[in-house]
């Protein structure tokens, strides 16, 4: 097995790609829609130009990035690129504690670098208008509702990871494609509700970038994207173990 430093580097690079391209797509959508009159306060600009198609595009930017990272780095580090996934694998005794800590630190660093590189590529509008693609509950969505949405979205993501990858009976070769498309699909529905982060690192990077570069301070919402995804992923891992036991 590759040593922990190199595996952590792979997690860092993978999460960087995820945030740069995924969260970056959300920021670009807001920049494109900037100045347009939105029909209601639930519509903050994403959806102004293409309805749910805007969200599908953002979802696919995440999905393609995830598939690319899983296929390219999956055999090196496991390509979790998501602390919730790493924690769920640790909680079900599939992943060692020491590696879990190193992976999470690497994912948070990678996500932050992804946001900083995106800001460097796209300029100040990416921060002031695009918010670096940071997630926050949409108008009318409460803190509790956002946690629930994040938990359910991440539950589905982790059930899919268990079924198409962790389970030894899973067909080989489909994991990256199916997991990427799952995230894309979840974003279509949950994007305009909770932001559909499903991943504490994916929210951490833009939050830190916004704070460092003069954007909004959104850290009050961070617990949504920590509690929801971690609960959802851990429940899904135990749930899959239970429903697939005694086969």
């Amino acid at each position, binding site marked *: 097995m590759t040593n922990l430093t190199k595996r952590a580097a792979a997690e860092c690079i993978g999460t960087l790609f995820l945030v740069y391209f995924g969260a970056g797509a959300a920021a670009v959508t807001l920049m494109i829609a900037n100045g347009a009159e939105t029909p209601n306060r639930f519509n903050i600009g994403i959806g102004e130009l293409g309805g749910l198609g805007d969200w599908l595009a953002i979802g696919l930017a995440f999905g393609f990035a995830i598939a690319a990272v899983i296929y390219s780095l999956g055999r090196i580090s*496991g390509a979790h690129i998501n602390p919730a996934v790493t924690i769920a694998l640790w909680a079900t005794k599939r992943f060692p504690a020491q590696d879990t800590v190193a992976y999470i630190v690497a994912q948070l660093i990678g996500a932050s670098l992804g946001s900083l590189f995106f800001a460097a590529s796209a300029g100040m509008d990416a921060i002031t208008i695009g918010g670096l693609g940071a997630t926050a509950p949409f108008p009318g969505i409460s803190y509790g509702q956002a946690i629930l949405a994040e938990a359910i979205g991440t539950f589905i993501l982790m059930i899919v990871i268990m079924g198409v990858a*962790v389970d030894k009976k899973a067909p080989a070769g489909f994991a*990256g494609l199916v997991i990427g498309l799952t995230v894309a699909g979840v974003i279509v529905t949950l994007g305009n509700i909770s932001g559909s982060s499903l991943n504490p690192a994916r929210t951490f990077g833009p939050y830190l970038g916004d704070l460092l570069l003069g954007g909004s301070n959104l850290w009050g919402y961070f617990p949504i994207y920590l509690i929801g995804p971690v609960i959802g992923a851990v429940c899904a891992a135990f749930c899959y173990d239970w429903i697939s036991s005694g086969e």
Partner: protein
Amino acid sequence: MKCYLCAKEGKSTDAVGVCIICGMGLCMEHAVRDDIAMWEGGYPFPERKMNRTMPRILCPECNAAVKK
């Protein structure tokens, strides 16, 4: 079965193995026996080399082609 390579040299030697790729019968001299590394894991776990290896017999020609 006789060794194909020995037969080409005009000798008649009993084969002790068969090349897994081309099916050529091989004597002890001509058989190339290799231990192939096995890997476990892969997404979402890092791949690791297993302690077990898988034996494989090839003829010298196929062995050279595979190694390239």
